[in-house]
């Protein structure tokens, strides 16, 4: 990307002025919304709070905590998917648009397996935990397989072609997988069997005293815990193992890495495999949390996960996870804390728009992401 923020004293073109205006407008709108929200929390009758939103009502602390927890668990899943985008972009320098479909395949595998297990009476009964583990392993395997297969069939032959070519191909792959799933399994939404009572139950945590006490649904807690462990495992893999080191080397410079005796093809396959496994796990978590999956499930979370990767800084794994969590939280909070105080009716409908606006905002203000990108110099161009 050329210099997005230009040095001072430059001859500004119309476009630059417009962009500056746009930045101000966006940030201004956010500021006004937030201030109105704060005011509304303090005193709903305040004229500023009522300015755009005549029937302003303060949110209760419970509501806000609930939103945060929802956002965090959603964001953790975005983060898990984002890892795949981030790693592939780091290593190959292209957006694997079909990565969202890998996630969807994970969720679909979970749907099939969990229902078969439920039919056998294992799901809600005593063997829930082993069942879930088995489902997750299967989902991770299928997702990994899908990711590796798509690399082999669609992307490897295109290595070295202009950057947009593999991107367009991956759009085709995404389209193909989505519609193949529709044809194989039918177009409707597929339900997961109900989770056992003890998992769904809300749990109360008041470690930090009563004021900070909050209630979490068991499922969301599970999502957060599993996501954290997966992330930790991945971090260990990339930073501490030999294969991880090879991955980082290939991301830095493929040619030199291969001169150093690293098997570049194998490393790239590993990258896809690891990204796929993470997406598969995210798929299962999605299924457990929302208990429903449809062939297009992968599309929006996929794009949002890419957004998360960009927000965190592409190629930066910690950044991807942090980006995911920020995006999830922003998406959960912004409609009620920002759009509603700004007088937008039906703000939750615009959740997805919030995610895209965040992407645009980050690219306008800090194109390298919040935590900095890690790309080889050729990919940075």
């Amino acid at each position, binding site marked *: 990307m*050329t*210099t997005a923020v*230009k*040095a*001072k*004293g*430059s*001859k500004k*073109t119309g476009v630059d002025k417009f962009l500056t205006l746009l930045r101000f407008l966006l940030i201004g709108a956010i500021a006004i919304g937030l201030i109105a929200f704060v005011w509304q929390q303090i005193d709903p009758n305040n004229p500023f709070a009522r300015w755009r939103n005549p029937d302003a009502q303060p949110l209760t602390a419970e509501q806000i905590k609930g939103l945060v927890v929802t956002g965090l668990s959603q964001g953790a899943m975005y983060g898990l998917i984002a890892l795949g985008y981030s790693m592939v972009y780091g290593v190959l320098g292209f957006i694997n648009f079909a990565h969202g479909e890998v996630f969807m395949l994970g969720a679909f595998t979970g749907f099939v397996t969990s229902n078969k297990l439920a039919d056998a009476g294992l799901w809600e009964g005593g063997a829930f935990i082993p069942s879930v583990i088995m489902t997750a392993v299967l989902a991770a395997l299928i997702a990994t397989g899908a990711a590796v297969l798509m690399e082999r069939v669609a992307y490897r032959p295109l290595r070295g072609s202009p950057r947009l070519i593999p991107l367009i191909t991956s759009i085709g792959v995404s389209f193909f997988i989505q519609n193949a799933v529709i044809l194989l399994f039918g177009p409707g939404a597929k339900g997961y069997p109900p989770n056992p009572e003890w998992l769904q139950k809300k749990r109360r945590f008041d470690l930090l005293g009563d004021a900070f006490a909050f209630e979490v649904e068991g499922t969301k807690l599970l999502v957060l815990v599993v996501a954290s462990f997966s992330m930790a495992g991945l971090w260990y893999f990339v930073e501490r193992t030999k294969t991880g080191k090879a991955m980082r080397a290939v991301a830095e410079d493929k040619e030199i890495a291969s001169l150093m005796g690293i098997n570049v093809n194998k490393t790239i396959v590993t990258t896809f495999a690891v990204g796929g496994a993470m997406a598969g796990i995210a798929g299962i978590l999605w299924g457990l949390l929302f208990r429903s999956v449809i062939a297009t499930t992968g599309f929006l979370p996929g794009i949002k996960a890419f957004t998360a990767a960009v927000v965190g800084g592409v190629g930066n794994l910690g950044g991807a996870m942090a980006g995911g969590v920020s995006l999830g939280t922003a998406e959960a909070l912004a409609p009620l804390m920002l759009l509603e105080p700004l007088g937008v009716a039906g703000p939750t409908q615009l959740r997805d728009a919030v995610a895209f606006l965040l992407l645009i905002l980050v690219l306008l203000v800090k194109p390298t992401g919040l935590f900095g990108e890690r790309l080889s110099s050729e990919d940075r161009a």
Partner: protein
Amino acid sequence: MRLLDIKDLSVTFGGLHALRDLNFHVDEGEIVGVIGPNGAGKTTFFNMISGMVTPSSGEILFKGESMIGLDPNQVTQAGISRTFQNVRLFANMTILENVMVAQHCRTKQGVFGSLFNTKAFQEEEKMIREHGEKVLGFFGSRLIGYRMDQPASVLSYANRRRLEIARAMATTPQLLLLDEPVAGMNPKESGELTELIGKLRSEWGFTIVMIEHDMNVVRDVSDRVVCLDHGETLAQGSFDEVSNNPEVIEAYLGRPLEKRA
């Protein structure tokens, strides 16, 4: 008259000082040679003048106006044009198109003119084409004739270098920055090109800054030579002065300059 005046210019890449407090000037009508060992920062110096790299501090004045922070196209518009060390032609455009597209900033017909094929549009097209052919004709018969309509990628290495110069000329600059114009050419070709560089000044009126490793070429055309090393000016002056400067010789690993050519 000072055409280009550079004051205390520095640039860093990460921790690396590619250029450090550089002072440099070019008078109108001069040909200045820039020499220096590999990695001295010569190309970075050009990148900075042409706006492709933003300096961390310092000032670049062209005809008295600051160029800092301008986009490369604005710099070209102002009258500075360049060639690239690693020839970067528009390989799939024809040779003629390469020089036609370079006149973009000197012409102005837009969507309206081209859609309605206005008189002004036709005249401008004709002018662009004629100017392009004229620029190509500067190199004798090599780039014109049937060749004009071939893609640039079929050209030989030497001809690509020539086309690079032609493309830079087509932007009608006042200051021409040539980055190693004879690199990769045989002695006969480089001798010929040296002559042409002289003509670029005498016939076309360009002021020229030229990076070159070939000391014969530098000696033959430069009014003045500047030697860079580690991003700093090591010596300035006539070719003889610079080439006999002990520091310069030191920078070139102690070997006499002539032998490196």
